[in-house]
């Protein structure tokens, strides 16, 4: 069995566990917005999850919760992993609720300054 296969299995299991715990928690977008700032997510991803030079766009239309949570917990890329000791499951669920609450983006063609 390949190492990659094992990693996928562990990540999927972690996602299920997080999802299960998050489901039991009534996620709050309002609380999530505050947490998005205090945990410093906005530093790279912007205050409405729009992304920036240091981090990709998270909202609107965030990734499915399982995928996002798996990445946050296990990433070995440029972003450091946020394990549960640093970012509890309930807080992550609130942050996700906030990202889901971000309204859709207008078509850039409707913004005159982006058509100069």
């Amino acid at each position, binding site marked *: 069995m390949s190492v990659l296969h094992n990693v996928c299995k562990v990540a999927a299991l972690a996602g299920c566990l997080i999802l299960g715990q998050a489901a039991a928690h009534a996620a709050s977008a309002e609380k999530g917005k505050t947490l998005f700032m205090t945990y410093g997510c906005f*530093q790279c991803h912007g205050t409405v999850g*729009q*992304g*920036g030079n240091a981090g990709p766009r998270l909202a609107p239309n965030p990734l499915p919760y399982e995928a996002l949570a798996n990445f946050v917990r296990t990433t*070995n890329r440029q972003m*450091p*992993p946020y394990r549960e000791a640093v970012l509890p499951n309930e807080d992550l669920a609130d942050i996700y609720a906030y990202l889901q609450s971000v309204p859709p983006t207008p078509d*850039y063609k409707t913004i005159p300054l982006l058509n100069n």
Partner: protein
Amino acid sequence: MSKKRPQSEVSRRKFLAGAAVTGAATSASVAKAGTPPIGAAKIPTVLRPTAQQIALEANVDVEVKPEHGRPGSDFMVDVIKSLDIDYCYANPASSYRGIHESLINYGKNTKPEFITCMHEESSVAMAHGYFKVTGKPQMVLCHGTVGLMHATMAIYNAWADRVPVIVVGGNDLDAARRAPGVPTYHSGQDINAMVRDITKWDDNPVSLQHFAQSFVRAYKMSMTPPYEPVMIALDGGLQEEPMNEHSGNLYIPKYIKSAPPHADTAALRDAAKLLVNAENPVIVVDRMARSQNGVNLLVQLAELVQVPVVDQSNRMNFPNTHHLNQSEQAQALIRNADLIVGLEVSDFWNTVNLFIDNGLDNGFGARQSRVKPGTKLVTISSAELNQKSNYQDFQRFQSVDISMVGDAEASLPYFIDAVKSASSGDRKAAYEKRGEAMKKAWTQSHERSRQTAAVGWNAAPISVPRLTAEVWAQIKDMDYSLVSSRGGIGAWPNRLFKMERHHHWLGGSGGGGVGYGLPASVGAAHANNKLGRFSVSFQGDGDMMFAPGAMWTAARHKIPYLSVLHNNKGYHQEVMHVQRMSNRRNRVANLGTVIKDMGPVGTRIENPDVNYAKLAESMGWWATPPISDPAELGPALKRAVEVVKSGQPALVDVVSQPR
């Protein structure tokens, strides 16, 4: 060496003749050394040339008869004037009082004009910015020890950015003559030692003739690619001692610019064969274009075989409106390339490899190749001509298939010829097909950037793309120059501004030393103002606070430009470093116990917030209070533009997203 009799006066007839000689000599020099950076020839010269200048341009050394009682520093001014240096950026100091007095009285404070600076780091950064516009190195005078210590960070920036600056440090060398106390604290036996690793050449002249030789040599060496700063130690005694019979017959050596080194033509032919036959070639450029001529040559090369160009943007190398500018597709192009040609790329290893600072590999990060096996790598770079090893700006070592040592801009005409010779008609259809694909990719990238900019468009704090687009709306109809951009603005100006000319974007600091943005902007604006260009800068808040006195220099010397403060209230790069360490160690980053900041302790500029408007106004600037509402930004920028057009520097404080 030919010598002629000195000319003590210039009649109208001689003046006109001298002017004609000047023109011919300039053309000859240009023909030898390549086209100067854009604007270099446009700076108005309202002063009559001195006798020294006329003689020098007539290709002879100038004799100067020592006059009893005249100080040695007067002769030094004659030497400096022979090199057509516009400005001397300096903070006053006792160790160069002799030449200071000669510059402003004997030299009548012109060519060079003394520009009062409030920090030696600012002096060097101003000269750095000025050069990037004009292609003309400027002089910095500083106190030889403490002043030079202040200047070192900016000298390193200039070193890493391949920018010439003529640094002159006063020093009282003679222990038997210098005053005790502070003047002795401020003297050294070898002041150049502290900057030797970050200058191309230095000297410590002990006679006036020695000074003349060394100053002209220093200027010449700094202006031969790779351009770099140089350092001259200037003894206080030598400045103040009168010229007398012991000075001998003095002369000023003529400066003739060296032709820049170009790559070996046989190696260029081999590289050309690879380029014309590659299926997926890509050209990567960083500090390639030293002038508009470099931009034009690169366009010519790219169009010959419709090869995409990735501009890493330490200069404006390639127009972003051209369909072959594929900088936004850099990763995909490099991943799929069968040939990568790097032109003056400062970090080629990191171009073809990926480093991830993620704590793997025992905390040292992970390395992955970005390229396919078998991809051919070709480089042209003058960096190998720098024989310095202490500071690591040469980056990780990367083996390549064809490595050419030489200045890339000077090499391009030969490379273009080699590509033309190597091309055959049967590849024409393939080039056209690639060109069409690049046009489609460019359009998609253009639209994607704008759609990305629309996300968070009305957010407060103001998003970086919104900030960039609002500024562009105000300057798009002017001949503008983006003189500095720091503080997390990233590539947004390169996406949303139209950048087609070399002066549209001057690139970054070089060494990454914080504190470059403000003074370099002042220096660049100083040059642009004389050329009738509008200067704009995205100014980081942390960068501004290193030496805000540079604002006073701009107001004092009537240097107008628009400074748009990217006020994100923090040192954001460092935020993530601390966050990364905290996460790696399973700790929650400490935001402070009594005062809660919006980032880890030690990384924020808040509580209290800096009142930048008051700071700027106190030094003669027009300024706005902090703007958080995106709807207020456009009108504020419009007012600021009018202020700048009236001749006053203006600061617009924008409370913005971190990055």
